[in-house]
């Protein structure tokens, strides 16, 4: 009986790790300015307000401000270099590992054994496929 519980708990743990693997950690927020320069902010304790024509960001590292007129975009990144795993466009079914399908608006549609299985199951449309290694791909099902 005790062994069964152990096995069950380990399986649950494995599932949790597997699920987590699908959500890569985005520990940084990148503020990109019109001139191409970037400010990479650690999201730990990050708070942003807009005041007097400026974005004022405060986190555990301190405070920083950027003029609103200079801001072009912001995005989450996975490392302090401001890199983010890009979303490639895939036309092949080479991915043999499990994938999770999302709509472009972020709605999770389901988990599939591999890319080919996802293509067979999904209706026509464009989807973002998240692999268990954190890599994302965009596919078009025709």
């Amino acid at each position: 009986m005790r062994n069964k519980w152990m096995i069950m708990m380990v399986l649950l743990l494995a599932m949790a790790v597997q699920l987590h693997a699908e959500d890569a950690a985005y520990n940084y927020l990148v503020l990109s300015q019109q001139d191409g320069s970037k400010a990479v902010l650690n999201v730990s304790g990050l708070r942003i307000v807009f005041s007097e024509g400026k974005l004022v960001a405060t986190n555990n590292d301190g405070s920083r401000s950027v003029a609103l007129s200079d801001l072009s975009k912001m995005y989450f990144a996975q490392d302090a270099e401001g890199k983010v795993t890009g979303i490639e466009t895939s036309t092949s079914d080479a991915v043999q590992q499990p994938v999770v399908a999302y709509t472009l608006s972020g709605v999770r549609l389901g988990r599939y054994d591999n890319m080919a299985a996802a293509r067979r199951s999904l209706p026509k449309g464009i989807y973002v496929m998240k692999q268990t290694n954190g890599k994302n791909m965009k596919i078009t099902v025709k």
Partner: protein
Amino acid sequence: MKRVYSFIAVVMTCLAMTAQTLNVQVGQVTYRVPAAQSGEMIYQNGETVTIMGKTVSLSDITQMYVDNTVVEDATVSVVYQEASAQVEVAGNVAQYVDVALSGAHVSISQSDALPFEITYKLSGASADGEFYMTGSYKATVELSGLTLTNATPVYSGAAVCIMDGKRIDLSVKKGTENTLTDAATGGSQKAALYCKGHLELKGQGTLNVYGKYAHAIKSAEYMQMKNCTVNVLEAVKDGVSCDEYFLMESGTLTIKNVGDDGLQCDVDGTTNTGELQDHEGEDSGNVYINGGTLHITTTANGTKAIKADSMAVVNDGTLTLTVSGGVDTTDSTDPSYATAISSGKFVQNGGSITMTVKGTAGRGVKAYDIETNGGELTINNSAAPATISSDVKSAKGLKAVNMALNAGTITITMSGNAGKGIAAGDGTKSSSSSGGPFWAPQRPGGGGGGGGGMGGGTTYTNVTGSYTQGKADGTGPTLKVTTTGSAYSSSSAKAIKAICAVTVYGGTTEVYTNTDGAEGLESKTSINIQGGKHYFKCYDDCVNSKGKITFNGGVTVCYSFGNDAVDSNAGTTGAVTIGNGAVFAYSTKGAPEEGFDCDNNSYIQITGTGIGISAGGAQGGGSSSSSISNAKQGYKFVTSSISYKTGNYYTLADNSGNNLVTYSFEGACSSSLALFTATGMTKNATYTVKSSTSAPTDASTAWHGLYLGSSAKGTTSVTSFTAQ
């Protein structure tokens, strides 16, 4: 083991902590954007930022912050905090919803471009708040411990108003109690809980609703209910009102303290679709109860516990319906009576229904068609009669033009004066005939034509409708009707009254009345008993018709202690016909009341090989006769006096001592006119009646004093005769 759990808990906590979420707070609204979904968030001209398709003015943003909140896609949460409310919108639906707030009054507008369903999660409490939603895509609204009163309407007067014409799942979450109250003034809402589309109530929690302005719950289209407990505790108008159809699968629905009907369903459009397969596209005005428990109480004049435009169908479940309102005479040409179930057609296939009717002239079920195919139906009606526009209006148990009591257990108890247990058929009331009203307490003595047969009462023309009991295969309902009320004005109590023809195929009937004029089974057209077992114990006539009465199957026992047992006023050959089966009809009243009264013995016909035993007072004046034309088997009118006693068992036997039938009496019966005919009787053969104090023990059928198929023999000679 504990260390394993602890380890897993720590790992799970760490995993959960790494799901970053960007929270964009705009006043009381927070858009929760998972980092993994956020993509590039574009700033425009230093004035706006667009995140997951949602563009927000930077000047409106209170703050943005990142935390580890786990966001459930496609959800909008509203937490009421008395004078305010906090709204949280999942990032993936942010671009499809616009939120407006005024204190705790929340309005959410769904974009027509919304490609998938949103779940709205409502919780918290506010003494002055509301939830108002518009949209064109189906939605789910979850109530997770919500207490919401709309005191000063902003968007509507309802507590929850869903102006979305699609399917709305309203899920009352398990273990939560939720209470909705709308504004008594300042609004024009139709209900405390209003849904423009199809409302599907579900979940395993409890929802209490107070309708302070109009209905408590209103769905402008169909409404379904499953699992949840819904308590309508107050309504100015209906407790629950919906269009198209109402379907209850399970759960508990309680409705009380309402100003109008308990549950009402109307046809929405101009065309009634009738019931459709799987209810797809149905607009029938039907109410279906397939399970669950309903407790509905109404007290206002003319109100109905359940009112359906078309059909009310009970397939299963337990219904307790109580109506106590008086007559609504707002429309003087069409007064309205308190009624437990009012519909075009009422069908019971199963379940258990208990009706308590107290309101003046109230009804248990009123429909154009009533059909019972199973289940239990119990009606306790104590409603008093009333005179409205010079017409007596009396209480009814079941009232329909077409009555088909095919199966089920039906118990009707009427205790109000002039109450009718069952009223069937329709026609044009034309006149009162010369015999005078049959309810009249001052009855003429033995000198009147036809003896006790009161041949009078109201006559009808243009008669429509039908009354059938049981099916051609001999099966039928278990029916018990009791009336204890007295006559009122020109109206007598009746157990079963049909203007139309009555055909009884089967089942079991017990009918009890105990006041003058209270007949057991009356038809203004005809009565035909083809099968089943039936027992009438009535003060007045047990079976009475202006037309012909035929016994052609089954077993019928009629015991009248104040009038005739069987009385036909057809006044023609075949007024009473004995075919097959068995009928035992006796009156203990004494002369002139008879067992079979049809004004002239020659009107009796014997067309089969059944059993007919009658006992009662002498044939009255007029054209009495002692012969029957074309009798198919032997018979005898015995006009010598026979004193039947209770506790004795009387056996009719042939010359060889073979038992033809044994019968006994519930009350002492002094008979001076008795008809005997029984299976096997032949003309000119000799028969005897002997009594015994021992009841037959081997009868194949024993039914209220009638024993068939027995070998019992009497010991004391009572009478003997030669058959005609």
